């Protein structure tokens, strides 16, 4: 499946904003993403497997709030960093 990467995380993907990952759940897809781009998962998901406060993940444009969200091979994952800060 395709994963859309925000600019905040592009250092991990060699500045690719569209990469691929595989998995039957969001947790598996993020684990696969971390194998390909080590370190990226912990910036998005905490050690308690919670999506971080200022990060949103969309699957086919619907927000996924849990990592056990099921995925299909043609789904598109979009990782977004919230508009916050200063």
């Amino acid at each position, binding site marked *: 499946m395709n994963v859309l990467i925000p600019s*905040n*995380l592009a250092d991990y993907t060699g500045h690719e904003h569209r990469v691929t990952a595989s998995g039957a759940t969001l947790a598996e897809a993020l684990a696969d993403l971390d194998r390909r781009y*080590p*370190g990226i998962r*912990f*910036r*998005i*998901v*905490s*050690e*308690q*497997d*919670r999506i*971080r406060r*200022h*990060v949103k993940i969309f699957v086919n444009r619907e927000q996924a709030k849990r990592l056990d969200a099921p995925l299909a091979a043609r789904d598109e994952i979009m990782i977004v*960093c*919230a508009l*916050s*800060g*200063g």
Partner: protein
Amino acid sequence: MSRIPGAAPARGRVALLVGTRKGAFILKSDAGRRRWRLAGPHFFGHIVHHMVLDPRDRKTLLVAARTGHLGPTVFRSVDFGRSWREAKRPPAFPKAPEGAKGREVDHVFWLTPGHASERGAWLAGTSPQGLFRSADGGATWDPLPGFNEHPMREKWTGGEQDGTPDGPKLHSILVDPRDAAHLYIGMSSGGVFESRDRGASWRPLNAGCRADFLPDPYPEYGQDPHCVRLHPLAPDRLYQQNHCGIYRMERAEGRWVRIGESMPRKVGDIGFPLALHPRDPDVLWVFPMDGTSVWPRTSPGGKPAVYASRDAGRRWRRLDRGLPRAQAWWTVKRQALSVDAHDPVGIYFGTTSGEIWASADEGRRFTCLARNLPHVYSVEAAELGA
């Protein structure tokens, strides 16, 4: 106690490792500490709480970083910043069992190189209060369960209302240079704690230290040390700049003595940082801030000054030559006052308004090395040699 013989002053170039709200910078001096060159930003846009050089190899740099959106991490360089790699396993609390609420590291706040005999060992303090250790130069980090899982930890650290505005912190990780197993930590809030078994067990070390924000002003724990220092050549002499004043402890006595009461009344003895002379345990420098009314946390009266004591806190002298005379409403955070090991000692500090100031003569005169940087969180002086 006075100057300890045999400790040779450093010579040569000095680097200032500057952590800011928007990245890290490095200032390097010439051999005379007269000319400085600024490089950076590194990790532009990251919040850098601390950047520290490993004194055991003078090449390895560790950086505690996060951004406003992304989780915390540690970056490391083994070639003094020419190239960087991220920690493979940054500091993180263990995953809690299903249904239990586990803790999450919000940011890594403090980095301390391990004992001189333990090459590659580092310790990190986090927000919320957690203690972590690396044995491989910062590549992988493990929690220290002796503190993180201590049955008293929740009571020691208090609740959410006991932290600083930017979150509760574990800081001032001190390693006794005579004994790698002997550690101290400071917590805002929580107080000062000591371990004599490499962090397997801990006990409070707060006798004599005030906590005027609690019903019992002299509790066993719950104080708010802002910065704790141990003298490297006289490790039984401790100092702390606390929320409630400046203190000194002779470890054998085990009791903090408030030495800030001899500061001028108009200035007071509230502040964040404290720095020690590298060869004379009686000499220390602090940077007072306004801790009255709603705690503006700026230089008292808008007139910044370093205060020095050369007799272990009995008397204090104002050092402000070269600093703004008025309308300067900034302060210096707890990691942002540092000294080098030259003779005379160089004093360096970074301000919340993004300036770096230096004195090459122990505070007799200050000059501004850099302006217009982001809010400075930390300044560490590192010896580069010839």
